């Protein structure tokens, strides 16, 4: 394994068991159904997809909140997918989590100081060091004057400030990786850029790797190096931002890019080209390629029976699509 690889995910499957009836057959919601990728230290990737594609489940599995059914997660050489308590405890210090709902992510009955002290207390940091670290972190997220903010409760802060506290909490233990699940989707438009820039500054200052989970491709393209497009529990396209936007390979990626508007009055005059149908059920996914029922370029007989492997038509630009079956695998 490449020494600069921080996180290595191989063939990850996260399935939720669904108990339907006492004597009915249990089904599985295959939220993550075969995901493989590598993440280098200090790299930012965006995982883009719509709701129900499994991106949040991917994030939570990487965070160690769910146990994968199959597959491997290796972080700095340590297997996380089957970690014992000690390794998991070590891992928790290496990964920070920034959530979507800034208010919900903060315990409403604790003030900012207490919220930030908790992770430090749990990991046994002594009091003087704790206070120092809390101050450092508040300064980094620019919640100053600190004395003002430390005694405030979450409901006294604005959405942007709350999210800063969440970010502060995520970097407290000096992690190497931040997983941000829709970090700005519940914030106002004018605050989003602020928070995303904050994350970018923190990332470059501390050489953090960041995984952004989002559905807002427009925002995130400015803040990440690579983009993964997720659909039906699989990553259907991976590539550098510029490559992906210039030459989207997978038909779903193309549909997605076509559907995203930029603010332009001309939009009102034409209809957008949108693929028909709905995202696939993760409980009973369609056979073969997950996108085939909605794909305008479907090859009957192939796409609807066999799942495509990963092809690499361009260097470092990969996709799961039979259209590229002649490219290298």
């Amino acid at each position, binding site marked *: 394994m490449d020494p600069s690889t921080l996180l290595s995910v191989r063939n990850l499957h996260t399935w939720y068991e669904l108990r339907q009836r006492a004597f009915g057959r249990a089904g599985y919601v295959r939220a993550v159904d075969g995901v493989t990728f590598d993440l280098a230290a200090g790299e930012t990737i965006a995982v883009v997809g*719509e*709701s129900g594609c499994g991106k949040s489940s991917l994030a939570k599995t990487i965070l160690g909140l769910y146990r994968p059914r199959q597959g491997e997660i290796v972080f700095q050489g340590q297997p996380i997918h089957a970690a014992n308590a000690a390794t998991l405890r070590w891992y928790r210090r290496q990964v920070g989590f920034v959530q979507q709902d800034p208010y919900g992510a903060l315990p409403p009955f604790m003030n900012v100081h207490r919220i930030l002290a908790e992770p430090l207390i749990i990991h046994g940091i002594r009091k003087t060091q704790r206070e120092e670290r809390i101050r450092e972190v508040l300064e980094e997220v620019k919640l100053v004057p600190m004395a003002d903010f430390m005694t405030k409760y979450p409901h006294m802060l*604005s*959405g*942007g400030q709350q999210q800063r506290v969440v970010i502060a909490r995520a970097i407290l233990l000096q992690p190497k990786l931040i997983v941000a699940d829709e970090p700005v989707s519940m914030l*106002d*438009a*004018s*605050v*989003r*850029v*602020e928070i995303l*820039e904050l994350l970018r500054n923190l990332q470059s200052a501390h050489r953090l790797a960041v995984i952004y989970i989002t*559905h*807002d*491709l*427009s*925002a995130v*393209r*400015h803040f990440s190096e690579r983009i993964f497009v997720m659909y039906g529990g699989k990553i259907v396209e991976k590539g550098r931002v510029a490559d992906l*936007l210039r030459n989207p390979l997978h038909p779903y990626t193309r*549909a*997605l*890019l076509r*559907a*995203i*508007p*930029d*603010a*332009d*009055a001309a*939009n*009102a005059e034409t*209809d*957008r080209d*949108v*693929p028909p149908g*709905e*995202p696939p059920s993760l409980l009973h996914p369609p056979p073969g390629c997950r996108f085939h029922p909605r794909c305008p370029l479907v090859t009957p007989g192939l796409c609807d029976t066999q799942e495509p492997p990963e092809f690499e038509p361009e260097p470092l630009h990969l996709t799961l699509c039979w259209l590229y079956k002649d490219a290298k695998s």
Partner: protein
Amino acid sequence: MNNGLLQVEELRLHYRTTQGVVQAVDGVTFSLAPRQALAVLGESGCGKSSLARAILRLLPRNVEVYDGCVRVNGLDVMPLDEEQFRRDVRWSKISIVMQAAMNALNPVLRVADQVSEPLLVHQGQQRDVALACVRDVFQMVGVPLDFMGRYAFELSGGMRQRVILAMALILKPPLVLLDEPTSALDVLTQANIMNVLKRLKRDTNTSFILITHDIATSSELADQVAVMYAGQLVEISDAGRFFREPLHPYSQKLMASVPRLRDDTKLAYIPGRPPSLIDLPRGCRFAPRCPQRFARCDQDPPMIRTEDGRQVRCWLYE
């Protein structure tokens, strides 16, 4: 612009709360022609949802001030009493699709029954006639007819939103208010719904007021754009010129903070926070955060008409 479908003049809606009086809608004036779409843009807390409720008179119990003039097809509906308003205006002339409305479908009714309810109640139609209308509306919004007998929980988010849209259109009102209709939906579903709205605007006699914070999506439908800040409209303009070069400093900063997929313009953000609607500052409400403020801004600017027919609430254009 005055031969319009809707004319709103100095509409005010203030709420009484334990912390003081929230001046949610503070003197809003605009007009809308038939078959036109107006986008009301603003961030959370600017009062845009209250504006929708004010127009449709969906008021909570703690109303402190509610006045102004709302003219529908020339007739002032403010003096109408509650019962008249309910009969003659609400839903038959103006209807609304609320935020996260897809969660507001009655779980124990089949969707066709729910959508036909306004017909049975308002127009006293028979059930089979009503269901025929429902069928028409479903086709307009793109709900497959075999979904008519289904329950709400059997439909996806996008489908439910279309059902809600159908319910808003069932009495064929000339004006439909849409409060963040697609904010909880995916990109593809959002594009679908916007397509439906575009088609409705073209093919039927319906005007829309689209209230949203999503500037990019609003450009899909808008003929006119109004920007709302701290309870007031700070700019009203036609869509073409607005999206190219907004006039008000707030609109400019707002446009600059929206990331674009197709080009690399540098992103900016607006420092500070919008003012509390209880404790409004004297003078221009955006002045504390405005990079172009000057001495005159200590006075509250009126809506100023520019030579090319746009309206801005800013002393820079005096």
